[in-house]
């Protein structure tokens, strides 16, 4: 089946820089420019920029917006002050994750949901089905470009590209005009480093991209984005998070408020909390020199009995070791438990590790 892939507004820039373009969530995006390991390390040491124009932007507005979003999402919108953002989940009735997203509060009754590229259509359909009176929903995904600027140098870089402005504090949001160009920024990211995500009208993408490159920010692809997030144990939607798994099983209960009242999926989560979890998403580290673990590999016990399947995996460029995530039965979900990964018929030694893999 062939599908027409969407092109980023920065498509030409990626190709001129030698970006290796790959299909991702219906888009053609750079997986790397020359080396995933170099790009990864540059973000850990200095500052890199990722094109995240594939991500979706859904605006929710109206008098009832906050109350309605509180019924549609897991985190407590009442705790989110204007000019801030938080990580949250959209669940189905079974408590499974439809999407994980960042909710920006732009005003008292004015919100932006930054959602995964592969989920835009189903999110908008789901929200649309549940829409309340007095709330409007606007999918502007095709009109916005996005850049994630990540690394310790990000605050200086932001200042340099905006004539001396300063970044908001962690999770802070700014919706501003710079020389007639609107940008919406949030001090957040998916790498474990300081940094910010910047959204702008698609026509301005190249302007900001070039401004960043002039500040010696390194273009980085989806490959480094994946290895950076995996070192932090940040989940990847569609792999570590699915509609069959709840945020509690994924170990992300911090972003779920069961105290705020009912929301879609809350009964299932409350029951899970009371009865205990059958399986948990655990971090696994390879403990011998071996092939890097890959999603889909089987986790087995000492007798070769299957315990689970890797949902993420790869070589950690920072640690030089194989790292992975897998849902494991609760009795095995303890740090230092010895497990094995099957790689091409061979059993590779591993152990359950503390999250995150990477600490500064």
């Amino acid at each position, binding site marked *: 089946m062939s599908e027409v892939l969407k092109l980023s507004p920065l498509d030409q820039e990626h190709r001129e820089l030698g970006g290796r373009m790959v299909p991702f969530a219906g888009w053609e995006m750079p997986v790397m420019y020359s080396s*995933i390991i170099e790009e990864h390390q540059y973000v850990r040491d200095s500052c890199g920029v990722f094109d995240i124009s594939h991500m979706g932007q859904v605006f929710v507005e109206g008098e009832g917006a906050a109350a309605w979003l509180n019924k549609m999402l897991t985190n407590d919108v009442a705790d989110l002050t204007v000019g801030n953002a938080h990580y949250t989940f959209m669940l189905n009735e079974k408590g499974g994750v439809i999407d994980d997203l960042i909710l920006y509060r732009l005003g008292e009754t004015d919100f932006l949901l930054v959602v995964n590229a592969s989920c835009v259509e189903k999110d908008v359909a789901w929200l649309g089905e549940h829409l309340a009176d007095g709330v409007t929903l606007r999918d502007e995904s095709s009109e916005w470009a996005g850049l994630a600027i990540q690394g310790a140098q990000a605050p200086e870089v932001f200042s340099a590209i905006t004539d001396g402005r300063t970044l908001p504090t962690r999770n802070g949001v700014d919706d501003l005009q710079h020389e007639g160009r609107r940008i919406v920024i949030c001090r957040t990211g998916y790498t474990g480093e300081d940094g910010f995500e910047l959204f702008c009208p698609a026509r301005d993408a190249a302007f900001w991209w070039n401004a960043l490159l002039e500040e010696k920010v390194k273009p980085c692809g989806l490959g480094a984005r994946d290895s950076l997030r995996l070192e932090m144990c940040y989940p990847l939607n569609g792999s570590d998070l699915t509609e069959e798994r709840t945020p509690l099983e994924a170990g992300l209960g911090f972003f779920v408020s069961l105290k705020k009242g009912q929301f879609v999926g809350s009964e299932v989560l409350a029951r899970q909390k009371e009865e205990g979890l059958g399986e948990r998403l655990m971090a696994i580290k390879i403990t011998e020199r071996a*092939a890097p673990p*890959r999603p889909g590999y089987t986790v087995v016990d000492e007798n070769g009995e299957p315990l689970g399947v890797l949902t993420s995996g*790869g070589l950690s460029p920072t640690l030089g070791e194989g790292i992975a995530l897998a849902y494991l039965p609760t009795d095995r979900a303890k740090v230092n438990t010895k497990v094995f990964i099957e790689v091409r018929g061979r059993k590779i030694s591993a152990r359950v590790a503390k999250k995150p893999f990477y600490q500064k």
Partner: protein
Amino acid sequence: MTAPADLHYTRDHEWVRLQGDIATIGITDHAQEELSDVVFVELPDLGDIDKGSPIAVVESVKAASDIYAPIAGEIIEVNTDLVVDPAKINTDPYDTGWIFKIRVSSPDQVNDLMDAASYTGMVS
């Protein structure tokens, strides 16, 4: 991309250097560029192999790629330096980045392989 003129090439991006009845095999400069950062090499076992069978695996950060026996014979040596330094495949694909050596059952098997000009034409 380089492709030395004295080597033979396969469609699977391997090179073969034949010296007497000993063939040294590795992956091409083009292949290592495509893979980027090679982080692990699973070396073949010594012994007889058939042409075309998957016998080794080169893993980059992105993906695992099978290496096929380009000719039949007996594997007599593997490059154990790659165990500690798999990135040699990136930095020196035609020399210290070699992967294994085969004592070929018949040297004229290399006539089925491509020369440098054909290989360069195929990948460009």
